[in-house]
């Protein structure tokens, strides 16, 4: 001790930053000076990258047939039975559909008549038979009336009701340049225009004719292929082209086509102006169920759940170790505004976790995509804006989860208890939704009401209304939109943080 014994001047210097920034600075210093917390957070980021690399290299589909891509760039199902002839230049075709019946398998070799709402039978004009080529079609469906569709994703409703022998539907499709117009009629004389569409990419000579498609139907937790048969009459073509009718299965080897059921095949037979056509498949956007080998950004970011565990442990321990060692008393002695201390901890932890999560996601997505494509895996496309949303959303989810875990730690004041609670709230529901045999209702419920709803930020697949399939988180379809799903987690975190703040204020430290 060499201090001089002059009377002490009370107060000290009161310059520099004040209030919340100081508490924030202190909490940041606290965080960065515990090596375990820093390495835990870095580990979380690395886990995201590591799982992406594993997802990318573990699948090998180099010999798989190419996935048909539609004019919009998305994967499509383009497999159907096509009875066609060439049409050069402008022209048109009309027909009446008097029946559309579907068969659904009920056992290994047992087919029974059943309803396939999106079974299709009608007229189509298409730029050849290459899967994914441009087309426009007007059709009768099993349960959705007359529809006009083009480009695989566009769908317009025409007259409703089924086509039967007593009440057939007349359909007409006309080409003028790139303009295709579809008409429907219930009597063959009075026509209603369904829609006019512009189809780019139709060559001067297109193929025109009849088609039948029969998409898979959903049975419990899986889908089964179906086959449908339609009866056409009064087929009339006007325009140049000529030649006879050719029956052909489009896209028989396409990965989005499940093939024909046992003892069935695509066919067409004609007698007395009546044509009977049998077909399977669909002309529609591909969904996960029809393209199960396809990968999504959510698959590449599988490591998010592992990162979540690491982040949760760091976040919970960052406050519970203060209680265990008694450091919380010094913390509150240095910053007597307790709510402010808790908020500063949340900001530091959330900020650090966001940065780590974003770094991980920014590295993982391009790496995973590149490795997957190198191995021939088809990755469902996402725009760069969507990709950025997935990456930012993943980082925000990890950050918000860390704040939830911190708040649980402040409420429970016990490390193991807080980590367990956070994992039960966050990781467990996510793992349950990732179980393939989880019923869709249960899975969707979990993805709506639990904090795991936030995983919807990784959703890149759209749910086409004209495709019946299994839309579950397991398949990459979340019941909530990305923003809404994230809001569920944010609400949990905000409420828990508020409870923690109230308890911290009220309780003796």
């Amino acid at each position: 001790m060499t201090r001089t014994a002059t009377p002490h001047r009370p107060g000290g210097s009161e310059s520099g930053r004040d209030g919340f920034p100081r508490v924030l600075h202190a909490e940041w210093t606290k965080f960065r000076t515990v090596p375990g917390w820093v390495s835990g957070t870095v580990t979380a980021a690395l886990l995201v990258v590591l799982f992406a690399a594993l997802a990318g290299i573990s699948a090998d589909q180099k010999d798989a047939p190419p996935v048909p891509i539609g004019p919009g760039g998305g994967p499509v199902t383009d497999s159907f039975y096509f009875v066609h002839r060439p049409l050069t230049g402008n022209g048109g075709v009309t027909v009446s559909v008097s029946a559309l019946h579907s068969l659904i398998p009920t056992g290994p070799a047992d087919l029974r008549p059943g309803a396939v709402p999106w079974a299709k039978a009608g007229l189509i004009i298409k730029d050849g038979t290459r899967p994914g080529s441009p087309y426009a079609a007007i059709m009768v469906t099993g349960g959705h009336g007359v529809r006009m569709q083009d480009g695989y994703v566009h769908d317009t409703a025409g007259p409703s009701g089924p086509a039967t022998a007593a009440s057939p539907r007349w359909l007409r499709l006309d080409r003028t340049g790139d303009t295709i117009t579809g008409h429907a009629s219930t009597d063959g004389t009075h026509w209603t225009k369904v829609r006019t569409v512009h189809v780019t990419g139709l060559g001067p000579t297109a193929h025109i004719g009849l088609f039948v498609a029969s998409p898979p139907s959903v049975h419990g937790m899986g889908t089964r292929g179906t086959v449908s048969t339609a009866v056409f009459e009064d087929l009339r073509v006007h325009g140049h082209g000529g030649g006879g009718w050719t029956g052909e299965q489009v896209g028989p080897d396409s990965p989005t086509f499940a093939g024909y059921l046992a003892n069935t095949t695509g066919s067409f037979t004609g007698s007395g102006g009546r044509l009977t056509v049998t077909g399977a498949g669909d002309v529609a956007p591909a969904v996960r169920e029809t393209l199960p080998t396809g990968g999504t950004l959510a698959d590449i970011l599988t490591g998010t759940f592992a990162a979540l565990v690491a982040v949760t442990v760091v976040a919970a321990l960052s406050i519970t170790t203060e209680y265990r060692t008694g450091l919380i008393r010094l913390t509150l002695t240095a910053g007597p505004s307790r709510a402010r201390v808790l908020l500063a901890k949340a900001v530091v932890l959330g900020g650090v976790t966001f940065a780590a999560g974003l770094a991980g996601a920014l590295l993982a997505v391009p790496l995973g995509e590149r490795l997957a494509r190198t191995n021939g895996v088809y990755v469902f496309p996402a725009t760069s804006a969507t990709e950025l949303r997935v990456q930012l959303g993943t980082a925000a989810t990890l950050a918000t989860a860390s704040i939830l875990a911190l708040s649980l730690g402040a409420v429970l004041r016990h490390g193991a208890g807080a980590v367990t609670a956070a994992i039960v709230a966050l990781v467990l529901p996510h793992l349950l939704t990732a179980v393939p045999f989880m019923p869709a209702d249960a899975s969707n419920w979990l993805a709506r009401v639990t904090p795991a709803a936030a995983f919807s930020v990784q959703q890149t697949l759209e749910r086409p209304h004209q495709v019946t399939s299994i839309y579950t988180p397991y398949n990459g379809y979340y019941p909530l939109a990305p923003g809404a799903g994230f809001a569920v987690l944010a609400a949990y975190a905000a409420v828990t943080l508020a409870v923690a703040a109230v308890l911290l204020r009220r309780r003796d430290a």
Partner: protein
Amino acid sequence: MKPTAIREPAATGIVVAGLRKRYGTTPALDGMSFTVRPGLVTGLVGPNGAGKSTTMRVILGLDAADAGTALVDGRPYRSLRRPLNHLGSLLDAAAPHPGRSGRDHLLWLAHAQGLTARRVDQVIDQVGLTPAARRKAGGYSLGMRQRLGIAAALLGDPPTLMLDEPFNGMDPDGIIWTRRLLRSLAAQGRAVLVSSHLMGEMQDIADHLVVVGRGRAVADAAVTELLAAASGDRVVLRTPAAAHATRILTRAGATVTATGPHTGPDTVTVSGLPAERIVTLLGGNAVPFTEVTAHRATLEDVYLELTRETVEFPTSPQAPR
């Protein structure tokens, strides 16, 4: 005892008035009142469970009292803008995170108060922790952790310091160093409050003592006053002619008893006469004596006297209540 005398706004130090607090049905504080004045080392002593640590936690705003006030520099601790510039504290349980170095432990604390790393290195040097400052605190001995805690208390250069059991786990060198530090802090005009459950630790460092038992101050006085009160003005006299001496001294107005702090054969205790007068009387009457000693009580004696009825956990085999 009354805090009113010190309560002018500019007052530095700690004023505790009428604190009451219960944990469930157990009363921890039962009307605790005392003041800690600048320029003095005030000892807060009492048996374990008497309410010393609870009082300190209430002063720091960590625990809420059911009744009463605790003011630091005239204000409740939690209303202070930069609390470490008003009151530096070391709590018994203020352990650093084991994975963080001692220097980093002080660094975050400094950042919380807008202080610099230079100030951190100053206090590390002041407490003699420089060689260990960058090691993980998990490897520190209890004595090193106490020094780190003292460094934290000094960080804000506060006019008031409050240390809970700072000697616990310290080696003799550390104890001597801490005593000197506390004396010098008081000499600089700071108010220093030190708690201990061992009265012996207060010997030679405390100017003022607050003795607590069962949640309240049972004595609050200057050390010199307490010692004088406990010593009385008793003189121990050793003489082979005890009966003769007793007659002479009694005639001169003294009270002579055969019992007292130092009993034994040929030993009596004289009160009511100063030692010099006794020597003169005995010499004048040719009474032989081998020893005349003014009795000095120790703080230990004072403490035992004061806390005899308030010890929460007496060492007798009967369990308390």
